[in-house]
């Protein structure tokens, strides 16, 4: 147990959404793709950007900015799709997350991460694992399994 607590720091991939730094545990990430054309699925919520062809399988892509109530992502040369492995009740699914740009892989020790404050983040606190600090900037560490849980995404009909 002690070992776990003083466990070496975890690696995170950081990316930008509207100039804010977000991070995801790197073990959740399968790969990062350049932006490719996304096929829109009609009558889905705004944050469901659509589906892409990932080497033969159809993978849904979520616009992270739209999901967090920011203006929708505009395509730039830096826009990319982070392919994530999400644990759901039915097992592992692969999802894409649209981000403005990917920054770097960094290590954060347990001491550098604080539990998310209940208020003030403009984000639902259950979407966050914690907040990190790096070079004087805040890093929002996301709970990917929560954000991409079936409940969150199956607002399909409700929003339609």
């Amino acid at each position, binding site marked *: 147990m002690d070992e776990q607590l003083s466990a070496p720091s975890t690696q995170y991939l950081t990316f930008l959404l509207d100039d804010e730094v977000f991070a995801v545990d790197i073990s959740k990430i399968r790969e990062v793709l350049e932006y490719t054309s996304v*096929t829109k699925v009609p*009558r889905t919520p705004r944050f469901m950007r659509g589906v892409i*062809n990932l*080497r033969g399988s*159809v993978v849904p892509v979520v616009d992270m900015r739209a999901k967090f109530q920011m203006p929708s992502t505009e395509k730039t040369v830096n826009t990319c799709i982070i392919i994530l492995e999400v644990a*759901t009740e039915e097992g592992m699914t692969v999802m894409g997350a649209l981000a403005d740009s990917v920054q770097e892989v960094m290590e954060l020790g347990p001491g550098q991460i604080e539990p998310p404050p209940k208020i003030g983040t403009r984000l639902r606190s259950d979407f966050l694992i914690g907040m990190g600090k790096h070079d004087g900037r805040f890093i929002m560490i996301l709970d990917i399994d929560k954000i991409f849980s079936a409940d969150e995404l199956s607002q*399909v009909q409700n929003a*339609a």
Partner: protein
Amino acid sequence: MAIEIDTSAFTEEAYELLSELEDSLLELEENPTDQDLIGRVFRAMHTIKGSGAMFGFDEVAEFTHEVETIFDLARNGTIPVTKVLIDLTLAARDHIRALLDAAAGGDEADKVEAQRIIDGLRALDPSNSDQPAAAKAAPAAKKGAKAKDEDGPQLFRIRFKPHPEIFANGTNPLLLLGEVTDLGETRVVTHHEALPELEALDPEQCHVSWEIFLTTEEGENAIEDIFIFVGEDCEVNIRALDQEEELTTSPQKLGDILVQRGDIAPGILEDALKPIGDRLIASGAVSQSKVKAALEEQKAVKQKRDQKKKQESATSIRVPSDKLDNLVDLVGELVTVQARLNQISSTRDNHDLQVIAEEVERLTGELRDNTMSIRMLAIGSTFNKFKRLVRDLSKDLGKEIEMTTEGADTELDKNVIDQLNDPLVHIIRNSIDHGVEGPEERVANGKPAQGKIHLAAIHSGASVLIRVDDDGAGLNADMLRQKAVEKGTVPPDVELTDKEAYQLIFGAGFSMAKAITNVSGRGVGMDVVRRSIDNLRGTIDVSSTLGKGTSITLKLPLTLAIIEGLLIKVGDELYVLPLAAVEECVELSAGDVANAHGRHVINVRDEIVPYIRLRDRFEVEGTRPEIEQIVISEVNEKRVGFVVDDVIGQHQTVIKSLGSNFEHSEEFSGATILGDGTVALIIDLGKMVRFVESEEEESPE
């Protein structure tokens, strides 16, 4: 047996079920009160029993039935799950395996062991405890007659050396040889070294002898019978060469054979190890014909061994379906890359590149077709299996039932077909046992004495419907309700519609049978049906008329099937409509729209057809083209038009799942990947029409 069925499908499945059974039993040992696990054990045994009986493995079915009976008590809570029960059930599992192995040509299963298991299990039954355990008869064994063909053909070496004066008795050795040849495949070597010079030859004497290598299914006795009347006039030596070690190890060396046959002494063999046959002949130790005979023997043994090998490596292999899924995905990628390669090669003026691109295109096309054809199977073979089931079961129950099938060439993904087998077995067994009445009762009710079961497969849009109809007694909704209330599955104050009541039959442990028979009545079967169909993401629809019959329809999505699609364009996006549903395409001009005063109907050759504008439906921004296209389709036996911007053309569509996130999507049944690597969605016309209908009912504008 009039109907030949491939039993390998059953044995393969049974082996799988047995290992599942073992796992469940071991888990159950840890948590002896887990009802779910007990249910799993029970279902596995039930399925083994069911398919066992269907494929004629009566011994397996009978034995499993005995075990199942006791386990049923555990399921009802009559007896606790004890170590003894688990031990015995595990032993029973091993015995079922032994029975299957025996049927596949292995060693005979141990009957004493079977009796010990059954006696042990019966002793656990409290209602049986005062009865002497061995009072009941053991499951009948119907073996014995099979011994001959179980062994398969055997290889014999026959040395036939007639005495010189054999002709004097009027015997013609050639006729004898002919008879031997009739028994099977032969290789004959003639030894003529005893033949004297021409001047010394006495034509009334026989100077030659023969060695025959015979591969035959007849036993040694049959060969001996041939020579029975000439035993005095010749030397006949028959030896089976078919010993296990001779066939499983590599063929014997020529020298060893000669030594073994006593044709040479071991010392000579050591002298002559290089081109052995020639050296032996040269040294005069052995005649040319003897070497030849030995060579023939070696050849025959080798041939036999190769045949045996071929038999052992079966003609079909069972591959985990996720490997096939992977293969299909890879081919899909390859097709996409190939399309890009083609595009690039057509824009470059490079002849070499074009040649390569064309070659890749051809190979990719073949690879794709092959891969797909591996997965797609006609459902006919599955249908045929049920003919036997219906025949045997109806005979057992004293009923006359005719089974008819329809749509046997409907192709379904192998995955789906594999998983369809179990539920269909249970549905059909149920129909035979509970649905169709006995002949007297039928005649009394004014129906023909012979009942009917109709099995049909129909393509319906992006689904396949499998329907099992019988003309039996039908379901009694009131009785179902009553039974459900008795069982406590439904509170007494809840009103169920007939349709809802019919669905009750799929509940675990729900049975309408008054007595438990070998066929059904334990309330497991239909539970299996629902679970399997749920796993396939299909739906079950039951309709029934009391006294007229019951119809159970399984609606299965074409999860990984290929369909012929019609590629259409709405806004900037491409979509695929299932071509099977499309009847025609007509133009929709602004004038037509004005004619209908904005109502969504159009007059197609004097028929009023309502339409759905996909642009509106999909909330596409931008202006409509001047002339739109209407794709007229048949949906749920009604004609409905779908207005699109443009019709692109036909498209071979490999259906990809949209994943769990879009599982409940109202309009799409899947997606496909187009030549340029982008994704196009496949529209589920039936669902869309239903959804629009219900929307318009709710809010008439």
